[in-house]
């Protein structure tokens, strides 16, 4: 079986994508609400990844 080696960013974005899809589907009732919530979750995940990334970068000097 081949070994997959993704970077931190790629892995985080892939995780954000699958989590957003599942959270959108399971927490909201209508399709438009699900889509909106999924996109919102994705935005929060990506924002957190970049925010914490910059915080760690600046924290290290």
């Amino acid at each position, binding site marked *: *079986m*081949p*070994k*997959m*080696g*993704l970077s*931190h960013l790629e*892995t985080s974005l*892939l*995780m954000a994508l*699958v*989590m957003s*899809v*599942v*959270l959108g*589907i*399971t927490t909201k*009732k*209508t399709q438009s609400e699900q889509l909106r919530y999924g996109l919102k979750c994705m935005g929060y995940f990506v924002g957190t990844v970049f925010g914490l990334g910059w915080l760690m970068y600046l924290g290290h000097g």
Partner: protein
Amino acid sequence: MAEKVAGEASALASVNKWAPIVALGWLIPGAGHFFLGKRLRGGLLFASVTLSFMVGMLMRGYLFEWQTGDLFTTLIYCGGYIANLASGVPYLFAKWLGYSEPDMAGHVVDYGTKFLVCAGLMNILAMVDAFEIATGKKD
């Protein structure tokens, strides 16, 4: 007395209604939704859980074994085992094929372990959603 018997019969009928769907949803991610006619949702849930599990395996993530000890070890290993088991057929299939990677340090392996655990946790969310749809609490 008659009301009590009727209530018990209703509860049993309700269990018979949702239990097979939740069990199906556990075995094959998204199958509960598919069975309830929510094909798009079922397909997306299947794709998300299976993709997460596959990526976890390709990153050589660790599949937890039931292990007890101090509180922290018990929480991590037993919780991880339950989460892994919640993935259903992908987990059973991986075990059947002899997938057994050691618990090693390293960011790729660590991410893989998280993907494997998250696949199970996402399937638990999907099972709860299928339960709510089957019992009429959700459309």
